[in-house]
């Protein structure tokens, strides 16, 4: 079971800040494909991966990063701190 978190407009499009996902996805990209095929709101949120960033266990990661042993995956737009 994976904790999946969403922030900013990704959270708004999906409609919730976090959820638990039962998945066998081996990489972030596979997880995204699974989520996209669930419902339109996911397809919409993940329509342009260039506009998204991902963190694995609270560290920035890549789309091809493996999910083996991972507890938490977060999706969000590029950060706008400062």
């Amino acid at each position: 079971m994976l904790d999946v978190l969403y922030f900013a407009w990704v959270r708004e499009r999906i409609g919730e800040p976090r959820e638990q996902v039962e998945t066998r996805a081996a990489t972030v990209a596979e997880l995204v494909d699974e989520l996209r095929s669930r419902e339109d709101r996911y397809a919409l949120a993940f329509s342009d991966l260039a506009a998204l960033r991902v963190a694995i266990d609270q560290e920035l990661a890549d789309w091809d990063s493996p999910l083996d042993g991972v507890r938490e995956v977060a999706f969000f737009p590029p950060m706008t701190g400062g």
Partner: protein
Amino acid sequence: MRIRVQSEPFDLAAELEGFGAEGDVGAQVTFTGIVRATGGLTRMEIEHYPGMTLRAIEKIAAEAAARWSLDDCLVIHRYGALVPGDRIMMVATASRHRAAAFEAAEFLMDYLKSRAPFWKKEYGPDGAAWVAAKDEDEDALSRW
């Protein structure tokens, strides 16, 4: 090294009290980010990723401290509701010489902008909109 992420306002003078008091400090640089009213902005909401934010900033600050041998370093970043004129964040650096203090402060600012998990939503006359990251913010990292 002191790093805080908080929703409450902070007192600039109080935060700098005793800052950089240890070591042979010859220069101290302070930067404060303030909410502007540009475009009729009435308020701003800053969202962050609680589990990751502090760790991400600590990593950035540790990198700055190592690269410029800082004697002290302070980062405060707010989240939640802010209005024009409010201080969003501050960084302070202390070093033997000013070049290191200035450069490290700029490095911290550049990385906080695009590597610390904060997202700003602006509210104005045309409604609400998430602030989009600028290409130039990402480009700014390449100079380091």
